[in-house]
C-alpha cells in the first residue's frame, strides 16, 4: 500500500515541479521586457559601461589642463610587458629649483594586458581606467598613445 502511495505521490510531485519550471520559462517568453541582450551598434549612444570596466589606461586632467603625474616611473617599472615608457625632462620651478617632470607618458595599447598594476601602484593616483572600448584601428602605430595632453602641467600640491 505504501509503495503504491509513493508511486502516485512521485507522479504528482514530478508533474508539479515540471510545471513550475515551465511557468518560469513561460513567464519569460510572454514578457519581452526581461530580455537582457543589448543590440550593440544601435545602442552606442545610450551604452554605459560599468564602473570597474577596464577599457584603456588614461591620465585624467583637470579643467586647468593639469595632471597628477610626477614622472616617478613606478608604473613603467611595474608594467609586466613594457607597455609604459616615460620620457622625463627637467623644468625650473618658480623658486629657481630644477625639478623632474614628464615630457611624454607613452602608453602602448597594443601591448597592454589590462592587468591594472600601473593604476594600482601609482603613488599620486595619476592613472585611471577609461570606459572606451572601440580600439580597432587600421595602423598599429595608432595604438601608441601619449597620455599627457600637450602643454599640460603637474597639478599644484602633488609631489
Amino acid at each position, binding site marked *: 500500500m505504501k509503495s503504491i502511495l509513493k508511486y502516485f505521490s512521485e507522479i504528482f510531485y514530478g508533474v508539479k515541479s515540471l510545471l513550475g519550471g515551465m511557468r518560469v*520559462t513561460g513567464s519569460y517568453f510572454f514578457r519581452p521586457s526581461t*530580455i537582457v541582450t543589448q543590440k550593440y551598434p544601435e545602442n552606442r549612444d545610450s551604452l554605459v559601461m560599468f564602473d570597474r570596466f577596464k577599457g584603456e589606461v588614461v591620465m585624467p586632467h583637470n579643467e586647468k589642463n593639469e595632471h597628477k603625474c610626477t614622472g616617478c616611473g613606478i608604473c613603467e617599472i611595474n608594467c609586466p610587458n613594457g607597455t609604459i615608457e616615460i620620457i622625463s625632462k627637467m623644468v625650473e620651478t618658480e623658486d629657481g629649483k630644477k625639478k623632474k617632470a614628464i615630457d611624454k607618458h607613452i602608453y602602448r595599447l597594443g601591448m597592454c594586458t589590462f592587468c591594472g598594476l600601473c593604476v594600482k601602484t601609482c603613488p599620486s593616483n595619476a592613472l585611471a581606467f577609461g570606459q572606451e572600448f572601440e580600439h580597432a584601428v587600421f595602423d598599429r602605430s595608432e595604438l601608441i598613445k601619449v597620455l599627457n595632453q600637450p602643454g599640460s602641467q603637474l597639478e599644484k600640491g602633488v609631489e
Partner: protein
Amino acid sequence: MSFNIYDLTSFTEWIHNSLSQAMSPGWVTVTEMVIVGVAFLTFYAIVGLFLVYAERKVCAFMQNRLGPNRVGPFGLFQTIADLTKLLFVELVSIRKADKVLFNLAPFIVIIASFMAIAAIPFAKGLHAIDLNIGVLYVLAVSSLGVIGILLAGWSSNNKYSLIGAMRSGAQVVSYELSVGLSLLTIVVLAGTMQLSEIVEAQRHGWFIFTGHIPAFIAFVIFIISSTAETNRGPFDLAEAESELTAGFHTEYSGIKFAFFFLAEYINMFIVASIASTLFLGGWMPLHIGSWEGFNNVMDFIPPFFWYLGKTGFIIFIMMWFKWTFPRLRIDQLLKLEWKYLLPINLVNILLMALIVLLEWHF
C-alpha cells in the same frame, strides 16, 4: 470557377476533371502524384525553414535573449542564409564508412517523414490519401525513420554515432508503445481509424473535451512520448551535444546533414499535426454543443487556419518544454516509459473503453 475555402473538395475535383479531359486516366494519376509531390516539397521547405526560425526565437525568448535579429526584419531570413550556406558546404566522404548505407540513411529518414505527411488532413478536401486505417499507417510509417538513424550511426564507423543510434533505437522502441496506446485510446472513442472520419466525429466538440479525463491523459502521454519518438529535447539522447558531439549525424556535412536537420523539424510538425487531428479536432473549428451563434462565428475562420493554429500551438508546447527541462539519462528515460507512461496508458485505455461502453462521453 470559384473556390470555396471552407471546402476544398470542389477545388481538387476541378483539378481532377480538367486533367481527365486532357489525358488518359493513367497519365492523370501520374500528373496528380507529381502535383502532390511538388506541393509537399514546397510545403516541406517552407515549414522546415520557418520552424527552425521559430525554434530559435522561442528558445531565445525563454532564455532572455533576442535570437536571430540581423538578417532581414526580426532575422526572418536567417534560416534562408543558413540553408544557402549548407548547400555550399563540402560533402566530406568518410574513408572507412560504409558508403552505400552512409548515403542512403538521410534519404530513409526524409522519405519516412514524407510518407507520414501524406496521410494528414490539412483541411476539408485537402488530403493526399485518406486511408481507412490512417492512424495505423501514420504510426507504421513514422517509425521507419529510426531505421535511417540506426543506419547513419552504424555506417559512419564512429563511436559517437553508434552510441547515439543505439540510444535512439532503444528510445524509439520503448516510446512507440506509448504513442500507439495513447492513439488507440482515441480510436476507441472515435470508433474508426480513418483520419477524415475522426475529424468529422469532432464536429460537436473536440475529443480532448468530449473524452473526459482519459482523453486528456492520453493527450499528455502522446505529447511526451511523441517528443521522445522524434528525438527532441528533453529526450535528445541520440544527439546529446554535450556527450556525443552530434550523435548519429556527427559525420554528416552539407546537404546530408541538412536532411537530418529538416527531418527532425518535419517530424515534429507531423507529430503535432497528428496530435491536433486526433485530440484537438484537426481542421474542425471549435464547436460547443448547440450554441448556434458561437459555432457560426467559429465556422467563419477557414479550416486550414484552424489546422495551422492548433498545430502551431502544439509545436509551441513541445518547444516550451524542450527549452525548460534538462536532458534525461538513459535509465531515467526507460524508467519513465516502462514504470510510468505504459501502466498509466493501459489503465487509461481501459477507462476509456468503460466510458465508451457506458456512453458517458458527450
